[in-house]
């Protein structure tokens, strides 16, 4: 019945791996998890300290009786460990040779092997220590570069998304119950057959809420992958100079010749905890130079896709073709403050850096405005499923045929279930029977 879930029958291996990046460092942590974790520690000659108490131990090679390293050792019982299994952590000195030697010792023990990527988390998942959304976000936490990313990953890890999805799922199940009841209990006085009136308004709200997270995800993705801010404007307005100032190094070739920048040049900066990619683009102008023209096209495309555009003003601007890139919330900047005051929301000297701090603050403020209120974080995969769930709910709302609407709702539930947990017909029937008095 439950094909594809098996492979649980055999006794679990004990797995071990470096929990810190490989290579030299002051310290490295080796994590051991599984039924043999404690005996692995014993094999290394490290006497067992009390559970969850860190102790200094001499790790000895069992074959040669040589001292491998002095390490801080901590044991976790299965009831309190990350994986739900007996676990040991060895804080060794960060040398490859030490780690390699310990790996050799552990790998020779029966039932021990090096962990596969993500295997500790997978075991935690199987032991019911976390749900899928939490497990997924853990990977994000580990990858978090900036403070906001960290906070977002923590929000996921603590299960905020799981809670929201559970609540949505409950509403979807409740709607399904109304739909199903109207199909299976059509002849009952207590069951309304007009689910459209009863349920559809809430379904529309639900779709909007799910949709908000799915698109709020755009913000979440940018948090991880970086926001893009395109610097656009006519040629020779100082765009590359600004970029170089932001980069603190020569990233773009600047010259007084209009049309110098033809490829897109990207510079990464962190602003107020936000990772931001600045894109320097070819000056937007009508040109007869084919190469430059191709550059302009690429620039326009990148600028249109960016999270924010800095529209660089120029006194003698060639403005044609620029206006359709304007989006609400974009900034107009004047970059040659050191030469003369100019138009725009902000004035900066790209050359001296005057006003750049205010510009960066303005950019951060605008990007942070994009964060959905009370945003729920979601990974890319989760956002995709949430988007599917929203579409399915909307289809169900539009469908006149109840039994077909149910198919859409089931699809929606399934998409939510792929984010966390699952639902089955018993859930729906439970809901039906708790809400409707059915039976003649």
């Amino acid at each position, binding site marked *: *019945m439950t094909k594809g879930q098996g492979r649980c029958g055999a006794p679990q291996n004990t797995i071990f791996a470096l929990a810190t990046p490989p290579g030299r460092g002051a310290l490295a942590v080796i994590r051991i998890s599984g039924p043999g974790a404690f005996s692995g520690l014993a094999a290394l000659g490290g006497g067992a300290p009390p559970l969850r108490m860190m102790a200094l131990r001499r790790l000895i090679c069992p074959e040669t009786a040589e001292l491998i390293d002095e390490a801080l050792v901590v044991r976790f019982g299965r009831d309190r460990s990350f994986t739900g299994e007996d676990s040991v952590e060895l804080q060794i000195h960060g040398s490859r040779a030490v780690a390699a030697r310990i790996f050799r010792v552990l790998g020779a023990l029966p039932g021990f092997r090096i962990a596969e990527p993500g295997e500790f988390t997978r075991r935690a998942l199987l032991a*019911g220590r976390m749900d899928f959304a939490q497990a997924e976000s853990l990977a994000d936490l580990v990858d978090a570069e900036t403070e906001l990313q960290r906070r977002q990953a923590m929000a996921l890890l603590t299960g905020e998304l799981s809670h929201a999805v559970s609540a949505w799922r409950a509403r979807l199940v409740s709607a399904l119950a109304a739909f199903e009841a109207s199909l299976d209990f059509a002849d009952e006085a207590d069951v309304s057959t007009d689910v459209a009136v009863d349920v559809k308004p809430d379904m529309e709200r639900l779709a909007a809420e799910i949709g908000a997270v799915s698109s709020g995800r755009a913000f979440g993705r940018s948090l991880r992958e970086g926001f893009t801010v395109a610097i656009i404007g006519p040629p020779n307005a100082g765009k590359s100079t600004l970029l170089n100032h932001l980069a603190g190094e020569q990233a773009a070739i600047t010259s007084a010749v209009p049309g110098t920048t033809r490829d897109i040049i990207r510079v990464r900066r962190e602003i107020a905890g936000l990772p931001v990619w600045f894109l320097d683009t070819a000056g937007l102008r009508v040109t007869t130079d084919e190469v430059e023209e191709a550059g302009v096209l690429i620039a326009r495309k990148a600028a249109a896709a960016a999270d924010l555009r800095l529209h660089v003003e120029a006194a003698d601007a060639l403005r044609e073709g620029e206006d359709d890139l304007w989006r609400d919330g974009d900034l107009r900047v004047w970059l040659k403050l050191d030469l003369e005051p100019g138009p725009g929301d902000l004035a900066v000297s790209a050359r001296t850096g005057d006003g750049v701090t205010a510009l960066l603050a303005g950019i951060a403020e605008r990007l942070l405005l994009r964060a959905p209120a009370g945003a729920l974080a979601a990974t890319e995969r989760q956002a995709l499923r949430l988007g599917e769930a929203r579409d399915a709910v909307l289809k169900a709302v539009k469908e006149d045929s109840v039994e077909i609407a149910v198919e859409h709702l089931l699809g929606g539930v399934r998409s939510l279930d792929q984010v966390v*947990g*699952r639902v089955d017909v018993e859930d729906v029937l*439970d809901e039906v029977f708790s809400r409707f*008095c059915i*039976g003649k």
Partner: protein
Amino acid sequence: MDVLVIGGGHAGCEAALAAMRMGSTAVLITHRFDSIGVMSCNPAIGGIGKSHLVREIDALDGLMGRAADAAAIHYRLLNHRKGPAVHGPRAQSDRSLYKAFVRNEVLAAGLRVIEGEVVDLLVAGDVVTGVLLADGAELRARATVLTTGTFLRGVIHVGRSSSSGGRISEPAANRLADRIRDFGFPVGRLKTGTPPRLDGRTIDWSRVTRQESDQNPVYLSFLSDETVNPQIACGVTATNGETHDAVRRGLGDSPLFSGAISGTGPRYCPSIEDKIVRFADRPAHQIFLEPEGLSDPSVYPNGISTSLPAETQEAMVRSIAGLESAKIVKYGYAIEYDYVDPRSLLSSLECRVAPGLFLAGQINGTTGYEEAAAQGLVAGANAAHRTRGEGPIEFARSESYIGVLIDDLVSHGVTEPYRMFTSRSENRLQLRPDNADQRLTPLGREHGLVGDRRWRMFSEVMSFLRIARDRLESISATPDEWAAAGLDIRLDGVRRTAFDVMSRHRVGLERIRSACPELEALEETVGKRLEAEALYAPYIPVAKARCDELRSDLPRLIPIDLEIPANSGLSAEILGKLSRLRPRSLGEAAAIEGMTPAALEILRALVVRSSARAA
């Protein structure tokens, strides 16, 4: 002898006749010959989900659909405003006509019937080889099918009085029940109930709403093409505040609330006292007054099943509009009985631990005539197969409600009397009453279940369908041409066949016929079937995929022997509650006070892992 069938209800008769159709010899044992074909609860066959089963039984040349049409005195197509996948044809029966039809079929098939009480099973090793009767006679067979309904340790409750019985005024089967417990089958208790029966001549029909039989009835059997009996109307009335007060006054003597009944009753068929307690804010509950026969004055008040004391039943009935001076012919009662956890069965309905023994019907924890009959057919056919040393006949859950029923029972067990709902199928759009023959008749024919007459008719219908489908696929036109023919479909410039237009643009039979003169000859039932095919065609692949995915469905029931490891992460408090309350499903576990979502997730993971190990 090949097959022994114990019990002459819906399951028993289908089992014996299925075995005989397949060429086996069969004997049916029942307490009384006269009780063969009795409808012990409401006098109706079909309804939503249930009619799906009846059509499938019929497609396998079973008895129930034909019996229902032969005895029908009132037809009603439930859900007629909704799509064909959820249509629920239902026929109210004249009890005596139903019984007569079943008895004639049994006699015509040459089935041998023995009156007697089975008190024990005969075994050789762990194989069941026959039964022992109360008079000491031993009957041996290569396969034995038990269809004991509510008779195993049946206890009947009315108010504070309770007595042993399998149905009202029929003895229970206690010795057999003891033996089944001795065999070590996991046994539980369930409960069901029935309303008081009224004398229709004492009902004031002018005070109730009349509900007429359908003008163009939808029959239960594929073989039926006409209404054979005069059709009569039903009445609709409702309870009121006074009724509810009467019920509340009697609650003190209710075996349901006094703790006298421990078995779980069906939530979808609650007693009136249950409804009033659980849904205290509802001012009224509907009651259908269903005459039990053309010449039988007795009326079945559908909706007030009860086990309240007789005097409360009197007061309750008197308070209802139209029933002020109605005479109760038989009091309502609740019955508790043993059932065997169906997870101990294979999908052939043969017991895992007792080869040669098959169980079907209420003994497996189901309720309903249709559910019982479907299992009877499956058990009887598989019993016949066993006698020939052949493997089980598989009914896939993606192909039939019979498959859904069997799979639900043997893999998930039951927590209350199990009834079919269309929502139980993941492939609802495909498993329709209209195409049950397409789905199952060839399978039935292959196994010898389907006789020549049905096979001939089926083949004929299939060729009509093919011709009609070809015609719909051969007519094609541009959107402009369709518009000119009177169909206002979206002008997307794509040339479409008539079938595509029906499917993509939800154009029904009537409209497509009026747009295409060459379809004028398209026969109604064939056309309706194609209309259903066209309507659902775009959605079926998705549903099918989901269905296949759910083949590995996570168990929703918590195994009796679920091991919770010490490191599960569940708190001592939750562990204590789990071991004390022993929830049978995750749903029940979720209802436990103090159960957190996290704890539920852990429990779910444990159940998943335990089933993965079992697989």
